[in-house]
């Protein structure tokens, strides 16, 4: 648990100060030294335009991790709100909300994101919209499920009888109980967002070049696979490491919660 927490902290730190550690400007072109192998000058080599790969990877944390954070946070807020509305509202509202949720779940998320981001045209705003639109449903389901189970708790009945407003009901009695489970969902959605961002980047519908996003870097590297195979390895490894660490954190959190629940 402690080691996982440490890893998460390192990731977080890297996404904040990563760009400061970069030895070069990530978009600076050095045509004479294009596709260099790793050396003391270019620690991880250069890409087809002679840009420093290490610098691009470090700046990429801001894109991949930062955007994934924003997207999963939007999903968390929107999904929780919608799920709580379903749980606190009347039966008709609940039914309608759940059918909308089902409709959104009735489509492979990544394909939906590809279509939305692609049709809206590339760029960060469409990327955020596309991935947020396809990620709020899980939060909504969890929030609604727990919310409904709270409805019969004594203290919720008491609060309702006393005429407590829905807002303070949600604030004091629902959110505290929801939070742990939502955080677990959030970690897995965070990891999915990282994968989604780089997949969209790789397909050309995500962050646009020359921004050093990892998926876009892979797309560039693919063309020069024969000449510089290593160039293709790095962005992939960074994605795998990030997703792995976040998934580990999610598992650890879930286990800790299950243990607490059993006590």
């Amino acid at each position: 648990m402690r080691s996982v927490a440490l890893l998460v902290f390192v990731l977080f730190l890297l996404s904040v100060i990563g760009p400061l550690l970069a030895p070069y400007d990530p978009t600076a072109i050095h045509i004479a030294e294009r596709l260099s192998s790793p050396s003391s000058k270019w620690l991880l080599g250069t890409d087809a335009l002679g840009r420093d790969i290490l610098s691009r990877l470090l700046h990429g944390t801001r894109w991949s991790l930062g955007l994934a954070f924003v997207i999963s946070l939007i999903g968390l807020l929107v999904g929780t709100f919608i799920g709580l509305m379903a749980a606190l509202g009347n039966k008709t509202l609940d039914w309608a909300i759940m059918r909308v949720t089902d409709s959104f779940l009735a489509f492979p998320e990544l394909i939906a994101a590809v279509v939305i981001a692609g049709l809206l045209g590339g760029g960060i705003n469409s990327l955020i919209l596309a991935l947020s639109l396809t990620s709020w449903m899980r939060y909504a389901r969890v929030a609604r499920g727990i919310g409904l189970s709270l409805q019969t708790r004594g203290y919720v009945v008491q609060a309702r009888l006393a005429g407590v407003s829905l807002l303070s009901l949600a604030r004091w009695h629902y959110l505290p109980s929801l939070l742990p489970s939502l955080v677990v969902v959030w970690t897995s959605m965070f990891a999915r967002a990282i994968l989604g961002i780089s997949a969209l980047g790789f397909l050309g519908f995500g962050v646009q070049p020359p921004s050093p996003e990892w998926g876009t870097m892979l797309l560039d590297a693919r063309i020069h696979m024969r000449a510089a195979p290593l160039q293709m390895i790095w962005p992939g490894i960074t994605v795998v490491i990030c997703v792995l660490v976040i998934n580990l954190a999610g598992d650890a959190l879930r286990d800790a919660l299950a243990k607490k629940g059993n006590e």
Partner: protein
Amino acid sequence: MTRRILGLLARAFVVLSGTAFATFTLLWYAPGDPAHAIAMARFDAIVSTDIVDIVRAEAGLDVDFWPAFINWLTPLLQGDFGYSSVTGRAIWPDLLSAISYTAPLALVGLVIGLMLAIPLAIFATRYPESWLDRTAVAIASLGVAIPAYWLGLLLILLFSVKLAWLPAIGARTASHMILPALTLGCGVAAALMRIIRSGILEAKCQPFIPALQRRSISQSRIARSHVALHAAIPVITVFGLELAFLLEGTVIVEVIFGRPGVGRFLVKAIEARDFPKVQAVVVLTALLFVTINLLIDIIYKLIEPRIGDNNA
């Protein structure tokens, strides 16, 4: 039971309508004028606004949102996917040809995934929490974290570029299928393995297993009939999610390996802003997805009638 299944059908219908509505809303508000795109494609030249307006009227796009939605939905309901706005060709034959590449790939990918995941899960759960189990779980966790496009590229790098054993791009021969199917299969296996593993572990904890053991029913028979059935329930539940994974993976794998399947069809259609083609793929995917989820729900209710409608 019949009433429940009717309920599920009604729900599937509502969901499908919702998806169709969402698709149309997206197309309606997406930047770019579909009528203009159609006109450009048809006359293969820069067109005047008059011609665009004529085309718009022809395509039933010159009305408000709701009538346009009806105009859009009616041919779809009749199974008519229309014509490409870029090439003017009928969409269905092209789409059918794409499906003929995608369906076998998805199927083989799924089979490879199951063939990797099930034995690994059984192997791992023989001694739960042993180093064997832990290693298997670790491999699966790693597998989940590896994006399909990267794995595909790595496989191409190893088997096509370095070893030159297998072809990488295209779909001419059966050997072209190996790398993409393997890419897909590994992803599926990683996701399935952990679910099957916990399914088996949970089934082994069921109170009736020791009772069966006491009645000296052989270990392998218990494993075959009772544990397998119990482990199947969570597996069936996540099958819908796996299907999503499979379809998503296919899109990416087809792009990497240059296979002319549905995924590439979709990506090219989006790049060309060929709206009718995009909507054809979207509607078909939704239909497939809802149908399979419906079947899963029905099977689920048949196996486990006790479980109520708690995720309604």
